[in-house]
């Protein structure tokens, strides 16, 4: 059965297509070349004047696992607004708090309704990976995947402090990917989550973890090298030290140099771009950060934009979340040490436009978006739900594409914050092509999803079709059609068919001998057996709903 999408305007950066009018043919879930005259076209969609993009990919969104579920559990009040009927319902906005802790069903539905066809959970604690996959397995409509957290687990820190060779580290990293069914490796506050368990309260890039006597810089070097040598497409995902602290931009700048040129991705960089200037000792360092990003071609980043309203922050960074807990709103939080593996910090937060720090955070995020020149190296995220729920992406896209709209919003901010930002002097407006880079082609390339994020022959037919409207928020909030693997699943912004999507993984080969030492370590120090730590393929695809897609990397020489 062939579906024809006729006369759409293609925004397909992977093939340099910037609004050219073309047809797309779909068969068996994939985009195919124009079939011969004799082949029958089963259905045709006339897309004259419509904007056609690949399905969007959220490369960093906390959609599953322990932290998110604790946030749901702790914050029942967030769900109250969900049940509102008129007249209250009309005030429901994309960054309503119920979207900050959506159920798995809601998460899948809200993503696909916006034309997103994949989202990646960026902070899977290896010990908690089974839960993350259970939740993502219950998330309909979209493809999923996750990054496994290393760098604060005692096994890795022991290896590093014992000066294990790089091959041993590589084997452990590859083993972790396979055991946790992940597609990337993340490090959160390198060494800092562990240090907090030894009662250290802050950790700088070149400061030792007091127990292991290793620095964050050494951790970053070791893990980024492992990821690179193993041929994992996704560069090491780095949540820098000193999250949210005034003056942290220097740590962030120095972190860019920690891998000696090996690719790294610095996540939610907005939260790591703060200076100490001005009366309030809190200022924007977006200019310095953007300049460094422009210069350091081996570094990519996502922004982690904040938007005003009630949300909840969920992070593995217990060291910094414990500090942030005093700002919790509503006043409650969860801080957990987890299994000599990592940690978990959940702190609800309300960003207010009249608050100096919050207003400046908003401006800093946008300054970075507008000052980083290469859209292939900067990604659109709110670090859902930390900066705002992912449902606010259409609003964020409008802020990037519409200078007038942006400046109007800026004019409503805390006046002291306005005085400390150069946002109105940044005249850039993102084009549709650049948005497609950032949310499609670039994200797919970064993660290594070869058949996603583009509209070329052979691509999976994850396709989103919009009506070109001057109000970009309205446009991106409600696509006309969304196709998932060739099936029409959304029409006029509403789900018309429920599908389940696949989980994307990568499994570089490793020396199976790594399990000998790991098995002894688990028996001696852990409270479960090594075999039960590992998640089998069968568990992932149980009941026939889950699918696994394994992406092959290519090992790189040392």
């Amino acid at each position: 059965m062939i579906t024809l999408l006729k006369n759409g305007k293609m925004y397909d950066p992977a093939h340099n297509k910037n609004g050219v009018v073309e047809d797309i043919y779909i068969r068996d879930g994939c985009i195919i070349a124009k079939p011969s005259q004799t082949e029958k076209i089963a259905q045709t969609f006339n897309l004259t004047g419509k904007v056609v993009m690949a399905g969007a990919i959220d490369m960093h969104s906390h959609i599953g696992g322990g932290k998110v579920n604790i946030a749901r559990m702790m914050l029942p009040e967030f769900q109250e607004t969900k049940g509102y009927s008129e007249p209250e319902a009309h005030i429901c906005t994309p960054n309503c708090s119920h979207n900050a802790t959506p159920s798995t069903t809601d998460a899948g539905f809200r993503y696909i309704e916006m034309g997103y066809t994949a989202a990646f959970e960026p902070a899977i604690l290896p010990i908690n990976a089974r839960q993350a996959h259970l939740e993502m397995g219950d998330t309909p409509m979209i493809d999923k995947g996750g990054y496994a957290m290393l760098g604060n687990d005692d096994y890795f820190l022991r290896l590093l402090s014992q000066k294990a060779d790089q091959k041993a580290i590589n084997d452990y990293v590859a083993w972790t990917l396979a055991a946790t069914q992940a597609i990337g490796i993340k490090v959160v506050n390198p060494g800092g989550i562990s240090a907090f368990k030894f009662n250290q309260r802050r950790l700088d890039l070149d400061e030792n973890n007091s127990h292991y006597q290793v620095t964050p810089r050494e951790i970053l070097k070791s893990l980024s090298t492992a990821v690179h040598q193993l041929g994992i497409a996704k560069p090491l995902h780095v949540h820098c030290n000193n999250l949210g602290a005034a003056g942290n931009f220097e740590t962030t700048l120095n972190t860019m140099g920690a891998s000696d040129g090996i690719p790294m991705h610095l996540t939610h960089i907005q939260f790591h771009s703060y200076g100490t200037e001005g009366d309030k000792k809190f200022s924007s360092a977006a200019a310095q950060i953007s300049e460094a990003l422009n210069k350091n071609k081996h570094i990519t980043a996502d922004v982690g934009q904040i938007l005003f309203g009630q949300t909840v922050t969920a992070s593995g960074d217990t060291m910094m979340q414990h500090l942030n807990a005093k700002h919790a709103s509503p006043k409650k939080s969860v801080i957990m040490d987890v299994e000599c593996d990592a940690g978990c910090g959940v702190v609800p937060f309300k960003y207010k436009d009249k608050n100096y720090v919050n207003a400046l955070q908003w401006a800093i995020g946008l300054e970075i978006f507008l000052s980083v020149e290469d859209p292939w190296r900067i990604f659109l995220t709110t670090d859902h739900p930390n900066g705002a729920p992912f449902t606010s992406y259409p609003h964020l896209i409008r802020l990037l594409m519409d200078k007038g709209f942006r400046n109007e919003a800026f004019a409503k901010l805390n006046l002291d914050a306005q005085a400390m930002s150069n946002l109105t002097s940044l005249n850039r407006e993102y084009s549709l092509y650049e948005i497609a880079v950032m949310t499609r082609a670039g994200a797919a390339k970064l993660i290594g999803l070869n058949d996603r994020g583009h509209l070329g022959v052979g691509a999976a037919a994850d396709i989103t079709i919009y009506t070109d409207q001057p109000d970009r928020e309205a446009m991106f909030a409600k696509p006309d059609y969304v196709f998932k693997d060739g099936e029409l699943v959304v029409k006029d912004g509403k789900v018309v068919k429920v599908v389940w999507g696949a989980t994307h993984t990568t499994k570089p080969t490793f020396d199976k001998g790594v399990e000998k030492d790991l098995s002894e370590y688990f028996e001696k120090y852990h409270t479960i057996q090594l075999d039960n730590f590992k998640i089998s393929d069968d568990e992932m695809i149980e009941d026939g709903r889950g699918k696994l897609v394994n992406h092959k990397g290519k090992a790189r020489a040392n």
Partner: protein
Amino acid sequence: MHTSNSIQLINVTCPACGLLCDDVLVENKNNKIKVSKNGCAKSITFFEQKLGEITPKIAGKPATLVHAVAQAARILKQAKRPLFAGLSTDVTGFRALFNLAQKTNTTLQHMNATGTQRNLAVLQSTGWQTTTLTEVKNRADVIVCIGTDVVTNNPRFFERIVWLKNNKKSNSMFTDANAREVIYIGEKLNTKAGISPSGRNPSLLACRTSDLPEVTAVLRALVLGKPVKSDKVAGIKTEEIQAVADKLKTAKYAVLAWVAKDLDYPHAELTIQNITETVAILNQTTRAGGLPLGGSDGDTTANYANTWLSGLALNDKQVEHDAILWVNSFSPEKLPANNHLPLIVLGDANTKFKTEPEVFIPIATPGLDYSGTLFRVDSSVVLPLKKCRENKLPTLSEVVSQIEAQLK
């Protein structure tokens, strides 16, 4: 799985309490299970239970599965507002129940809801700072068991987590396990497990359970450095409580454990909050963690799965209902309240009723009759359960999907 003659040795995960010990060895000889290593009273009861009645019953009379399912569906169809209670199952079973509940305007309530709600009330009021079993094993230097001896609920807690062998097989990374201080607070506690391998006795602040609110409030105040004027609190010398406070403050990693089920008195959530806020105060200067223990009958699993599926935790609110579906996969002795409403039981094959329900469908037990997935009581760890014996019992999700098909 090792096979020798007709005996199979299987390394299983035990779902009999919240610890989910996964080092238990059982042998299957002619389809009869015997725990052969690392068992405890609870796991032996669980694994060695006989295979019960596999024939469904309608009003106490044997029936086919098809008829029993049809009758269950009829009851659910007639009900305006059913209640699904018990909810003792694994992840797959709970997912099936949740879906059925969505289609039948149903409230869900776990058999342990009252205890769970005590913890939930604290989580939703102030939050908490907690830790998990592997952290306790490797870091804890002071362990306080408040209102519980733990072992009544989690028999192998001390054996597996606290007193280690200090050898290649069992050790602690950051502390001398056998030098740990164990302190109990409460009454009628089995403190034997708290004796260290070298014979050191644990300390005990003896007080009545009903005095725990006061004793924990004073401990919290003393840890915070607030003066307490009276010399005695609930019969305990204040200086003894002060000594505990001092130990906590000088500990590198203190662990304060409780079992919500054991704090069985009105407003016990305030006692739990005293404990968790004591932890929060300690974490201003040193490190500490709360440790909610206990857990049984898949309570953590049902609560977590419900939370991601619906966005909300399960609760213990009493709601009007006109029919009950009772699900009980693990503990045949746990029965639903007899309240004369139409009752469907999907339960352990060994369940013995005082009054026969309208429908009884024996179901397979996860971790015994089929493989499954369960959450450990400290919530971060999720473990696979294994099948150890053969039988023809249907799984909960199979029965539920058959009922669901009849509702269409």
